[in-house]
């Protein structure tokens, strides 16, 4: 079986080993005097300029799973899968407005994680702990999903085995290498590898969108083939356009996913690693190039329909694995060596976000659990060390999820992850603008949003499953007389905000202490070269406030 794909496997392996070497060399790239500091290992020295940030954040947000799952969704459901495009348009103005403020206040106070900010802003270690745990729990399944991206490729190349261990061995090896160079080089490794990953992806997609429509009879024929497939299917909600039932779901999913994406710890890590405000703002104009790429990648799902691709069987008897449609399309339509390049693009595409996510999760653990609760007086070197070890643990956990559990479990968890990370919006995103909310109000609101979100997700059925069947919640469950659906996360975060506001009003009336704001209005505009920033010393809420120069 795999012998038919020998050329592909050789090209894939060669490119994979190339980036592995780069990952280890990265430790010496833009090398600092002292690597034993969380700012260096976990944020690349907060020194990345425009180009590096573009590759790093682009490689971070547009993951291998996105590249595999979005066209798979288009292949299966049609227009509904295109939500990825408005989703990745809406996010940049939001980052421009909100995360630039987070960068400034973090630069000023030496924050490494969003929970660091929340702790200082609201003077509440409990709220910070909740934000940190939410971030870690939401990130873990996302890392596991990157493995599914690699597996889809390996499966297509025929690299499978008879038992679980043999089937997963290539992934275990790949992740062991990834873990080793992330341990050594920190954020510099994915930053350097992102150059290769993104270049490969751009080449593959540009070739695909010119060459494949030419082979398949043009865009008109591709859309016609997709239309015919959805017309013939019994599902009323598929098609190349949206219908009355799923429009609300489409826009709320796009907005909710955008809000969720920039709250994910790995996005924030990417943003905090840039060297000044201008780098971030300029990138908000340049990063949408990836959105165009994603839109075109989404359409690969329709090309697979036009090319008559039949997805490979899934893990369970009688199911199909739609995630294999894009690798199969490449296998069928491209010469072997180029299919190998395309597979390497997807495989390496999994490594960059997986590395950044594990670093982000490790930073959350180190700063907001280890330093807060286990070792208050940890030195910067100890912090960096704990983060390095935690990043290993996180990756072992992700591999274990895929090897020992049904991959569907990771997909479910990631669905939940998007909803739960949204529940940090009031504290993190609105907290950057206002301290109006009471810290206890935010905690109660968080709990309400989490509870409601989980309940709603549990209620969503799909044709194949009774629970956790997706994120489109039928409004009829709330007693509305309609067949419309809405994205769970948006409802949950709205309730979260309402509860937080009500509890805030009640606590304020009762004059419950609100704690001290560790930040000043001025901090939200601080930029590179701010005279008040003294690298490496400032990290505690209790530190004295210097007079504004």
């Amino acid at each position, binding site marked *: 079986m795999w012998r038919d794909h020998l050329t592909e496997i050789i090209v894939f392996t060669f490119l994979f080993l190339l980036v592995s070497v780069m990952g280890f060399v990265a430790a010496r790239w833009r090398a600092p005097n002292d690597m034993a500091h969380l700012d260096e290992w976990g944020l690349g020295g907060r020194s990345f300029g425009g180009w590096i940030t573009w590759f790093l954040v682009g490689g971070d947000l547009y993951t291998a799973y996105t590249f595999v799952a979005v066209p798979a969704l288009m292949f299966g459901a049609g*227009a509904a899968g*295109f939500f990825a*495009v*408005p989703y990745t*348009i*809406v996010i*940049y*103005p*939001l980052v*421009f*407005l909100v995360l*630039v*403020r987070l960068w400034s206040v973090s630069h000023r106070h030496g924050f490494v994680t969003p929970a660091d900010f929340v702790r200082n802003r609201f003077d509440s270690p409990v709220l910070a702990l909740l934000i940190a745990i939410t971030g870690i729990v939401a990130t873990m399944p996302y890392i596991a999903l990157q493995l599914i991206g690699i597996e889809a490729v390996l499966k297509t190349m025929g690299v499978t085995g008879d038992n679980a261990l043999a089937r997963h061995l290539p992934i275990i090896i790949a992740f062991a290498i990834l873990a080793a160079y992330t341990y050594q080089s920190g954020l510099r490794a994915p930053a350097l590898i992102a150059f290769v990953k993104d270049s490969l992806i751009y080449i593959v997609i540009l070739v695909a969108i010119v060459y494949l429509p030419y082979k398949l009879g*043009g*865009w*008109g*024929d*591709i*859309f016609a083939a997709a239309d015919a497939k959805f017309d013939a299917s019994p599902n009323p909600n598929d098609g*190349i*356009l*949206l219908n009355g039932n799923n*429009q609300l779901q*489409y*826009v709320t999913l*796009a*907005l909710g996913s955008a809000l969720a994406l920039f709250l994910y710890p790995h996005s924030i890590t990417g943003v905090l690693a840039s060297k000044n405000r*201008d780098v971030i*703002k*300029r990138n*908000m*104009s340049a990063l*949408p190039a990836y*959105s*165009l790429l994603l*839109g075109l990648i989404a*359409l690969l799902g329709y090309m697979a329909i036009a090319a008559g691709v039949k997805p490979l069987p899934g893990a369970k008897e009688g199911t199909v694995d739609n995630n294999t449609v894009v690798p199969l399309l490449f296998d069928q339509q491209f010469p072997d060596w180029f299919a190998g390049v395309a597979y390497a693009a997807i495989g390496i595409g999994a490594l960059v976000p997986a590395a950044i996510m594990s670093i982000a999760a490790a930073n959350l653990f180190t700063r907001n659990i280890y330093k807060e609760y286990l070792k208050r007086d940890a030195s910067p070197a100890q912090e960096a060390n704990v983060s390095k070890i935690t990043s290993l643990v996180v990756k072992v956990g992700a591999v274990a999820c895929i090897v020992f559990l049904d991959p569907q479990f990771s997909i479910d968890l990631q669905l939940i992850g998007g909803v739960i990370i949204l529940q940090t919006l009031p504290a993190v995103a*609105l907290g950057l*603008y*206002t301290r*109006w909310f009471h810290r206890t109000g935010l905690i109660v609101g968080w709990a309400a949003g989490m509870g409601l979100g989980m309940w709603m997700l549990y209620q969503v059925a799909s044709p194949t499953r009774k629970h956790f069947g997706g994120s489109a919640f039928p409004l009829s469950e709330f007693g509305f007389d309609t067949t419309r659906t809405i994205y769970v996360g948006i409802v949950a975060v709205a309730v979260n*905000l309402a509860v937080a506001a009500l509890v805030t009003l009640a606590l304020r009336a009762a004059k419950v202490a609100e704690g001290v704001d560790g930040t*000043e*209005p*001025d901090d*939200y*505009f601080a930029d590179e*070269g701010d005279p008040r920033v003294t690298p490496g010393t400032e990290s505690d809420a209790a530190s004295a406030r210097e007079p*504004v120069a």
Partner: protein
Amino acid sequence: MAAPEPEAPSAAPTRAKDHSPWNWLLFIPIVVPLIPVFFNGDSPRVFGFPRFYWLQLAYILLGVATTTLVYQMTKKRGGS
């Protein structure tokens, strides 16, 4: 979603670079792509793409144009 509240301009107003009215323009690429009436149709087709697809891809340009404009209009001049 609550609109961002303006901060009290008491402390060092010269630093308050984020308060430019140009920032309000950023709500255009947040709101417009989320109105299905505009994009949810088949005609007119462009290069074989139904409106649903080409218009949403075109919104990317709307986003780029807006963020670029706002950046140019709000960036500090001279400065270090």
